[in-house]
């Protein structure tokens, strides 16, 4: 079986083929970024970044229950901004909390789960790995 592709460049695979999120941490100020830059956008330092394995738990900081999207995109889905426990902020679908505002408490704890990118394939028929958030079970 072919190795799936990463749907975002910060999705990496470890030696066992297990996906993880690679964050870039500024060596000068500690800012956590999803992508490397020429210099740190927070402090302009050129000391570079340490690539670290990001935490997979965090809290919900904003969301929208999307009922209409672009043509061909299935709805509803929940678009969510999450701050992971190490400060990296990521956006993805939030699944398993329903489609009513009552399901989304401020700062609710969530967990990142990797998925098969909703089964979406590219023109060459290759499979992808994406991620989503789920409410964390305490």
């Amino acid at each position, binding site marked *: 079986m072919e190795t799936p*592709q990463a749907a975002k460049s910060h999705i990496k695979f470890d030696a066992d083929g297990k996906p993880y999120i690679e964050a870039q941490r500024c060596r000068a100020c500690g800012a956590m970024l999803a992508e490397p830059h020429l210099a740190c956008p927070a402090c302009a330092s050129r000391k570079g970044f340490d690539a670290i394995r990001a935490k997979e738990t965090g809290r919900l900081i904003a969301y929208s229950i999307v009922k*209409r999207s672009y043509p061909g995109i299935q709805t509803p889905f929940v678009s969510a901004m999450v701050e992971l426990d190490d400060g990296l*902020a990521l956006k993805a679908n939030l699944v398993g909390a329903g489609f009513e505002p009552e399901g989304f408490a401020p700062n609710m704890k969530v967990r990142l789960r990797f998925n098969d990118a*909703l089964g979406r394939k590219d023109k060459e028929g290759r499979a992808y790995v994406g991620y989503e958030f789920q409410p964390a079970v305490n």
Partner: protein
Amino acid sequence: MSDVYILGIDMTPFGRYPDRTFAQLGGEAALMALDDCGLSPLDVQIMYCGTVFGAYEMSGQAIMREIGQTGVPVTNVVNACASGASAFREAWLAVKSGAYDVALAVGVEKTPRGMLGGGGETGIPLEGLFGSASMPAVFAESGTQHAAKYGTTFEQFAKVSVKNHHHSTMNPKSFYQMETPLEQVMGAEMIAYPNTKLMCSVNVDGAAAAVLVSEKKARELGLSRAIRVRASALQSDPWNPTNPMMPDVNSVTRMAAKSAYEQAGLGPKDVNLVELHDCFATAELLHYENLGLCAEGMAGPFIDEGATALGGKIPVNVSGGLLSKGHPLGATGIANMYEVSLHLRQEAGARQVQGAKIGLTHVVGLGTASAVHVLEKA
């Protein structure tokens, strides 16, 4: 340095103009603005054109072909929804520097139908997988972030649309001119909670233009209808951990507002009316706080008490705003200044803000830029 004045300013009615070009729409607004102050295209020494979808077509030069090809410097400015205000600011800088006495700024747009946003995808579509990049959803998220902090409600966000649609019934140049009661706004098709269809700005076409002159030129031509530009501020988005996945329209607006208030030497309490960037109903409430119109976290109660309606403490978007007047991206910034100028000149008709002396305009271009201008009757 001496002041810069808006001597002429006008806008086309906002609407759908499938049979008209960027140059025709922009040229019409340019001529209207020149007529407003009795100047001719031959008097213009430098010209800036703000547009998003017309930038690749060199719309500024095409406008000059419509109104008079004098060979003056023309620059096309693209800055998302801040394109018009950014073109205006370039014209302001050109005059403020002392290099030119008469500058023309035009904002023009023919906006595609449908939802804007997204793009930049490779391999597979990312929409609906990594959340949504559509504008209604992005601004819905800004709203729920505010709600999580301060308890702002769906109903409070919806009241913005009720107010702005009501204001537009008094503006003959507005695309929509209809009342939308609260039940209708909240009951409209949900696009991206909490933004229903009536809480999303309308994609329309249109143009607006302003003639900016030096103090010397203004005194020569007469100041009776001149508007003094007290402040012109433009900022780009500062670092924020959630940016760019969640564009930060708050910090950039706060920086622009701070700069504008400092330049003008006044504060929010001195402002009599505001035209701000209500691209979505959720955004307007955030900007009450970003512009210092109310205290932190108080935007919800502020709209509840009617403070921002015509007749209230500080009327906001009496033109109908982007929500009802319409949002032709590149034209919006200058159209906001046209609205404020009407009030400062006491020419706003039924929606006149009584005794308006100082007005503030604000736009956000996602990506992200924010421009704030403070205008005063000369």
